[in-house]
């Protein structure tokens, strides 16, 4: 799904009162090619796009419309919702709406998001009512209490010759059961009220997403802080684990320990590392690798030395609840740690020199694959951009657990992606980087890179859950990376035909389809039909 770059180019050109031929001449392309670009019939990127932007006096970001792109995707998703699908709005309608009335499009997208969230909430409640052990226990108590009350009351009513002792016994028993039921009813109400309080905060993860998108995954304030933090650490030796340990000890009296056992936090959640604020001790499990230790020490240093800077970034109306602020603080603490370990300017220069070779960058910075991949997706400083990468992470169940989109490329925000994406194939060849050239139904082409890995196990029987991390970049940028070597980028026949996810994919001829498309205005094609044609 492409952002309407063409529409933006043509409307800006018309606003400036220039002809297609004049702009084409200024950019150095043929008028017919410009015509195709303006009608979104041709991809445009790289040097040509830069020249067009310059000729129109626009910033490249305004032209590619990254914000609009996300809005178009959101509106298209709303249109594809079963509630709206019968009205027949298609992707074109979504683009037109965003181009013609962005405020209204934003309102529609927000409304749809709220609707989808409340629908998920309803499903979660239905699940809870069926399976919640606490509710089941309360239901059992209610039924028992009512059974006893009813049975006792019937005895008192139906047995005229009941003895005084028995009568008193049943009256007492009805009384105590009624008191018990009152307690259960109170618990039940309390249960729902606390649930509602938790829910009211909305979806904290989604609010964090909004904060990251709003900043284009680049936080200039934190980058500046990172430069001085790194300098502080380097006063204790060449940057690395030893200097971090020293800096933490001298500045914050923190000791760093290793332990054979898995560490648990205050809630009992097991992890490879844990900070005990009371004793000022950072614990690492023996199996934690050097990259993890370096990164988490940097994160601790960042939280201790620059907590205020992080707090300032999360002081925004986008985050409405405690949970969202907690998630955001954690995420931005990690961002700051990454900026300390992988300093922007040097990292960008090295990335360019090494042609974005992630393994080589790992060696240079003693960092993990995910740390490097994630940092690459943050090279969005307006004055010094790297290749624009989308970032995605999946667990082995296919669930997407982290994502940052790429202009033009629709990365699903939750659930699962297209089963053909290399992010899933990577699970079959763990610890190996796999590349893939893909083509979407609209003709847009991307380079996907994925690698699955797991933390080291700490004992026999310790279950290692792999996660797969994927980077995506526009094919136009692929030749700047080492991963294009040996590939014929011009030959589209080798591309894997993919979609965003089955529900949003228009390919009728895909043998890997798992679910019917929910796209309005497209011919409906059934999956999993009987062999012999039926009317349904």
């Amino acid at each position, binding site marked *: 799904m492409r952002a309407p770059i063409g529409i933006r180019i043509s409307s800006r050109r018309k606003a400036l009162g220039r002809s297609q031929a004049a702009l084409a001449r200024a950019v150095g392309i043929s008028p017919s090619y410009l015509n195709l670009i303006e009608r979104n019939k041709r991809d445009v990127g790289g040097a040509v796009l830069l020249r067009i932007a310059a000729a129109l006096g626009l910033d490249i970001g305004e032209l590619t419309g990254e914000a609009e792109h996300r809005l178009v995707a959101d509106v298209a998703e709303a249109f594809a919702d079963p509630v709206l699908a019968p009205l027949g709005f298609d992707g074109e309608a979504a683009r037109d709406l965003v181009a013609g009335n962005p405020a209204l499009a934003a309102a529609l997208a927000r409304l749809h998001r709220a609707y989808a969230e409340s629908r998920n909430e309803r499903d979660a409640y239905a699940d809870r009512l069926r399976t919640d052990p606490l509710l089941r226990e309360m239901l059992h108590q209610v039924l028992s209490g009512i059974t006893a009350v009813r049975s006792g009351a019937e005895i008192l009513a139906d047995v005229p010759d009941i003895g005084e002792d028995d009568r008193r016994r*049943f009256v007492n028993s009805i009384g105590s059961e009624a008191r018990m039921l009152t307690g259960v009813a109170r618990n039940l109400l309390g249960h729902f009220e606390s649930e509602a309080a938790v829910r009211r905060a909305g979806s904290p993860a989604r609010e964090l997403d909004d904060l990251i998108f709003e900043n284009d995954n680049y936080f200039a304030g934190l980058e500046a802080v990172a430069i001085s933090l790194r300098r502080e650490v380097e006063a204790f030796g060449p940057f690395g684990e030893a200097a971090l340990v020293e800096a933490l000890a001298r500045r914050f009296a923190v000791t760093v320990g290793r332990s054979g056992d898995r560490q648990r936090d205050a809630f009992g959640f097991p992890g490879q590392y844990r900070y005990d604020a009371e004793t000022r001790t950072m614990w690492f499990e023996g199996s934690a690798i050097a990259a993890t230790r370096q990164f988490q020490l940097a994160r601790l240093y960042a939280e201790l030395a620059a907590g205020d800077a992080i707090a300032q970034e999360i002081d925004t109306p986008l985050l409405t609840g405690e949970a969202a602020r907690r998630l955001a603080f954690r995420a931005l603490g990690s961002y700051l740690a990454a900026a300390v370990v992988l300093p922007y300017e040097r990292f960008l220069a090295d990335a360019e020199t090494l042609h974005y070779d992630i393994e080589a960058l790992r060696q240079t910075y003693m960092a993990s694959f995910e740390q490097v991949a994630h940092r690459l997706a943050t090279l969005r400083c307006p004055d010094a951009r790297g290749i624009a990468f989308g970032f995605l992470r999946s667990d082995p169940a296919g669930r997407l657990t982290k994502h940052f989109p790429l202009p033009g490329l629709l990365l699903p925000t939750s659930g699962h992606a297209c089963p053909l994406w290399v992010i899933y194939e990577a699970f079959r060849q763990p610890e190996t980087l796999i590349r893939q050239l893909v083509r979407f139904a609209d003709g847009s082409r991307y380079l996907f890179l994925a690698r699955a890995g797991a933390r080291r196990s700490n004992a026999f029987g310790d279950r290692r859950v792999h996660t797969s991390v994927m980077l995506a970049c526009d094919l136009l940028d692929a030749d700047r990376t080492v991963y294009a070597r040996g590939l014929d980028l011009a030959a589209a026949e080798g591309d894997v035909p993919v979609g965003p996810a089955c529900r949003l994919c228009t390919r009728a001829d895909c043998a890997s389809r798992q679910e019917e498309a929910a796209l309005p205005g497209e011919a409906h094609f059934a999956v999993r039909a009987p062999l012999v044609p039926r009317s349904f």
Partner: protein
Amino acid sequence: MAIDVLIAEDEPSILESLAFILKRAGWTIEAVTDGDAVLDAARRLRPRLLVLDVMLPRRSGFEVLKAIRSDRMLSGLSVLILTAKGQQQDRRTAEELGADGFVTKPYANAEVVDAVRRLLGEALAQ
């Protein structure tokens, strides 16, 4: 000494009223309050009928029923199961395990008395 009805129910108030109405209907009764005790008591007391609650501590009513049906001495014992309203799956499970009758909580006393009477092969009260 054989008895008419053995009740397996852990809620004291329910047990109290069950015992009262079944005694009043003319049967001899004994009671146990957890799943582990049911089989022993059944062997010892040789009841004509077992009234068995599904939700028993230690050993669920289902486990008890399954053990009874595979026990040479007890397999012929009539079993009336007390299930909770709305738990359709409980009822199916009990049927598959060979329960002879069901009463759903919360019940009317007459439902229990009638079900017991039917399973004991006695004429229903007029």
